[in-house]
């Protein structure tokens, strides 16, 4: 895969089962910075420890011997220098960690976004949107927190502990050893509580989601609520969930409000034991007063941060689980868009041949069975058949959303698998019955997918061609009108015509139309039909049709039944042989007769 400016590393390579190693690999290119952050952290922690050692000298060499000369200024200068060093490196550490965390997250987001849009269509047809989105958003946020807070936080606590422990060892080994007696207990207690806190928190969050759903249901069902005058009942139901959330919150708080005092007591006991040992040693002259003062300042830094270790360790496990969920997406293989060895120099002709093409989504379940037909450039091919008979599957093979499981499709005499997908798709225009529109302006929706600068004139021409220009001008903001959730809602017919305008600008050689009757009025249907006919000229066109009227002029009609072509030919040819086509035609003629009868029957 070629590197691009949005992510410089292929994160789908070298995936590993080990989540921690996996997270380290995500950091590729940033590892030196991260190491820098940790070194800066160590320097800052050492400087802080240094501050207290300077303080010790201040007491022992200045205050106690009452030696207030130039030495005092020197030591105070040293003190401020240490503070400066500590401040600078604390900042450098935080700054580097932020660069690493935000940089890796940005790259991961870009990579995942691109990865998702380049996964084969077959993957998306199966996947659940909500699940993909939650992995792409909340799981990536969790990975970000792992780098930004948790990993660096654990590093900080351990470094601070080690450095201060060594410093106290220097002061006096006995002080050091008596100060860590309770540390295992502190870590154990915090692990114990936080694993419970995180469970209680999950329950609380789940209830939050339930409550939101309750609210949303009430808001979206407001007409039902009002129609049955059920406001009181709704309040009662909401209150139950609301109260349940309150109870869960109370439970969460009981655990938390127990943890802090209990850990306070353990830490406090350790602190006092250290104070006592130090004070007695100072009293006996084993250590100086300055040493004692430095010691009581340092010992704080090896005891209190330990309380947070449990929380951070519990939280990293969520970061790891999230990484695993992201990695599962990364494992999926992308669809190679540029793979292929053939691309014509001039324009594509549009001659298409299907030879014994079969397709199955799952082995053993044929959706297309040995489909054979051929068409000349510019021909109109109509696909007729019931839902699920294989029409949509067939047109999905043309842009290579899927590849046939057996058989061969050729375009201008060349196997279509030899064309790069990107080229192939640039030559195919699809107009669906109710196309997906993006929540941006109408103008952007029309030019979406046109890979060149498009002038205003061209856009207007395309819209006029698609018979949608007048509709657009009726909106207060015209072509700048937003479509979708935060903008106007377009009808099915209007969406379809926007897709036609889009296809006009794209100017493809091959056209795929879904001509199902959507719920539009007669006049609109006429407009759409006219626009489609103009669009079909000079392009090889596949029409998915449901009615005879829309296929009668086709050069080739394929009648589908259960994945097979049961009949093919022109309207005239098919009308002369008995078979499904004739049956369909007869039914539709009968319908017209019945309609006449019905209308004239009204007055009898």
């Amino acid at each position, binding site marked *: 895969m070629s590197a691009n400016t*949005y992510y410089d590393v292929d994160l789908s390579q070298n995936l590993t089962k080990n989540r921690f190693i996996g997270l380290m690999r995500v950091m590729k290119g940033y590892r030196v910075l991260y190491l820098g952050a940790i070194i800066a952290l160590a320097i800052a922690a050492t400087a802080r420890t240094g501050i207290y050692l300077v303080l010790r000298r*201040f*007491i022992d060499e200045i205050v*106690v011997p009452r030696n207030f000369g130039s030495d*005092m200024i020197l030591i105070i200068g040293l003190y401020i220098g240490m503070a*400066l060093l500590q*401040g600078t490196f604390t900042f450098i550490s935080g*700054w580097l*960690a*932020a660069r690493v965390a*935000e940089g890796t997250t*940005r790259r991961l*987001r*870009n990579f995942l*976004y*691109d990865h*998702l849009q380049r996964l084969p*269509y077959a993957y*998306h047809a199966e996947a659940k949107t909500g699940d*993909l*989105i939650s992995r*792409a958003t909340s799981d990536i946020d969790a990975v970000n927190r792992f780098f930004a807070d948790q990993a660096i936080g654990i590093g900080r606590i351990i470094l601070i502990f080690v450095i201060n422990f060594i410093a106290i060892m220097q002061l006096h080994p006995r002080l050091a050893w008596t100060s860590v007696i309770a540390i295992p207990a502190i870590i154990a207690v915090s692990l114990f509580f936080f694993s419970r806190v995180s469970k209680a928190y999950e329950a609380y969050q789940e209830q939050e989601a339930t*409550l939101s759903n309750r*609210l949303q249901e009430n808001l979206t069902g*407001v*007409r039902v*609520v*009002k*129609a*049955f005058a059920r406001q009181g*009942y709704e*309040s009662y139901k909401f209150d139950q969930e609301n109260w349940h959330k*309150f109870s869960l919150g*109370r439970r969460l*708080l009981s655990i938390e*409000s127990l943890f*802090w005092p209990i850990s*306070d*007591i353990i830490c406090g006991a350790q602190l*006092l034991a250290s104070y*006592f040992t130090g004070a*007695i040693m*100072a009293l006996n002259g084993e250590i100086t*007063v300055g040493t*004692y*003062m430095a010691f009581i*300042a340092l010992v704080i830094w090896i005891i209190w941060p330990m309380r947070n270790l449990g929380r951070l360790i519990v939280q990293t496990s969520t970061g790891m689980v999230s990484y695993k969920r992201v990695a599962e997406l990364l494992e999926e293989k992308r669809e190679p868009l540029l793979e292929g060895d053939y691309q014509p120099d001039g324009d594509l002709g549009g001659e298409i041949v299907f030879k014994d093409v079969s397709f199955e989504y799952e082995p053993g379940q044929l959706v297309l069975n040995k489909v054979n037909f051929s068409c000349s450039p510019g021909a109109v091919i109509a696909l007729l058949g019931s839902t699920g008979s294989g029409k949509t599957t067939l047109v999905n093979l043309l*842009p290579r959303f899927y590849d046939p499981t057996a058989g061969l499709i050729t375009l201008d005499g060349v196997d279509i698998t030899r064309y790069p997908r990107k080229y192939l*798709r640039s030559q195919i225009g*699809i107009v669906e019955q109710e*196309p*997906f529109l993006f929540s941006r302006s109408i103008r952007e929706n029309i030019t979406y997918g046109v890979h060149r600068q498009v002038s205003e004139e061209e856009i207007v021409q395309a819209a006029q061609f698609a018979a949608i220009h007048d509709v657009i001008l009726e909106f207060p903001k015209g072509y700048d009108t*937003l479509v979708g959730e935060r903008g106007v809602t377009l009808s099915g017919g209007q969406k379809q015509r926007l897709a036609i305008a889009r296809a006009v600008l794209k100017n493809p050689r091959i056209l795929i139309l879904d001509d199902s009757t959507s*719920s539009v*009025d007669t006049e609109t249907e006429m407009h759409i039909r006219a626009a489609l006919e103009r669009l079909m000229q000079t392009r090889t066109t596949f029409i998915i049709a449901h009615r005879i009227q829309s296929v009668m002029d086709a050069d080739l009609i394929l009648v589908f039944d259960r994945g097979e072509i049961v009949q093919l030919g022109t309207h005239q040819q098919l009308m002369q042989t008995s078979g*499904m086509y004739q049956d369909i035609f007869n*039914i539709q003629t009968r*319908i017209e007769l019945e*309609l006449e009868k019905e*209308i004239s029957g009204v007055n009898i």
Partner: protein
Amino acid sequence: MSTFDEFEEKDYGKLSTPILRRLLLLLKPHWRWVAGFLLSIALVSVIDAYTTYLSSQIIDEGIRAGSRDAIVRIILIYGGVMLFQALLSFSFIYLTGVLGERVRYDMRKQMFNHLQSLSLSYFSKTPVGWIMARLTSDTERLAELITWGLLDITWAIVNIATAAVFMFIINANLAVIVLAMLPFLAIVAYQFRIRILYHYRLSRKMNSKITGAFNEGITGVRVIKALSREDANLAEFSELTDGMYNASYRAAWLSALFLPTVQLISAFVLGFVLWRGGLQVEIGMITVGGIQAFVSYVTFIMWPIQDMARVYAQMQNAVASAERIFHLIDTEPVVKNRARTITAETLSGDIRFEDVHFHYESDDPVIKGLTFHVNQGDTVALVGPTGGGKTTIVNLLCRFYEPTSGAIYLNNIDYLDMKLEDIQSRIGMVLQTPHLFSGSISENIRYGRLNATDEDIEDAAKMAGAHDFIMTFEKGYQQDVGEGGNLLSVGQKQLISIARAILAQPELFIMDEATSSVDTLTETLIQRGMEQLMTGRTSFVIAHRLSTIKRANKIIVIEDGQIHEMGTHRELINLKGKYYNLYTRQFRQELEAQYDVFTQ
């Protein structure tokens, strides 16, 4: 579109007296809890400052004075004080936390109940997401401010005050130096906080845009692939992640700069204190322990200062949240009972619309002068293109909206004189996209009449033709319907909503027929269920099915807010106008579906 601007959220609000008053009112019912946690945190804060003082006493009275007894005594006092403080910690965490939950509960309850009283027009112009944000993130922010925010501020103020007292006890001169730096420290801390918060909020906004982009990229993947839009999409997406990167990176490095800066300022002050203090030891003004105490006070005074800065910065956001919440609570329902109402015994009787007009915006009329008369027991079919005003007519009839001019008479009474509850509790409604609530089938049917017995529910389901498919479920009537009824098919949802309407025994029945096709069997069942509901009741149907339309006593063709044609099926067919076109089109479509031309 400009109409959405009012839903843009500002994140800055000024604390005014009325808002403060209302915030305090929220706490008033729980004043004992508030008093409890404020007292606890104040004591915790005093003890914090006191233990620092005790440490210095160990040095002066113990080590320096050479008294082992003093050391033991002070350590014991220290231990006792710490135990007491642990107890207080428990009390303030529990009290504050639970109070916070309680305030959240209260506010959500108040807002939800108020929402129930608001008119339909409020919901049609307010996005669901906007309302939901009031009950979630805004509530969260507000509750946080008036509980933990209040706690932090109290802790900070008491902490600084107590530390100041102890510092003055130890040495007044040095205390003045330390206190003089506080305003400066506070300003620096506040400036940092407000910027960090700004970038943080910016990153949250970018985050929701990124979620939106993922959503669109995934749901629109087919179009993206067909148009080979991948490269352009990635370029656009990377603009979002760049924005996100910039915002969160700035927030992070500002945070990284913040503490060291504050620490450095205190280090300079401390250096000054040491210098002055050293000189004062010489003249016996301060002890070694005293210097140690000052080192601690100055080192730790940045915490309360930075807490105050944080809460102050967050307060502006929370006040903006409070303004939005109060705005919601203060919204008056547009449709409500008049001062004097008539108690209507029944709605049965003729219905008259007299020159009814309706508009949301005065320059954009939706209904333009409707006049018609419906006899008791008749069925009215409303037909016409989407957006023509059919749904609005039904909403007017239910008094979800009220006419902007003209009048609607139910049983010869102007319905504005009736009680809303009297009207709405007597109407049965089946919607086009049937809305079910999560829960069991039985619960959903019971929605029609809350005190109905299980037999009543089964009877209603039988009449609606829903009983048979319900019994095919493993749990029968106790089967879960899923969120919004998603585990059922559209046809099944429709049948259940018909059963729900039957159970309600309405006097007026309104149906918005589904456009989407369901299988023939279900269709027949739905038709029968509707017949059950229509017999003997005045009914309004927004009709799409020919059989429904033909059965109606009166067909009204609505287009562009006006009546274009009105009459019986026969009269309108003979007109050969709009109805004729509509009917022939529909006839073809239905027959095609009926013959199911492809699967013979």
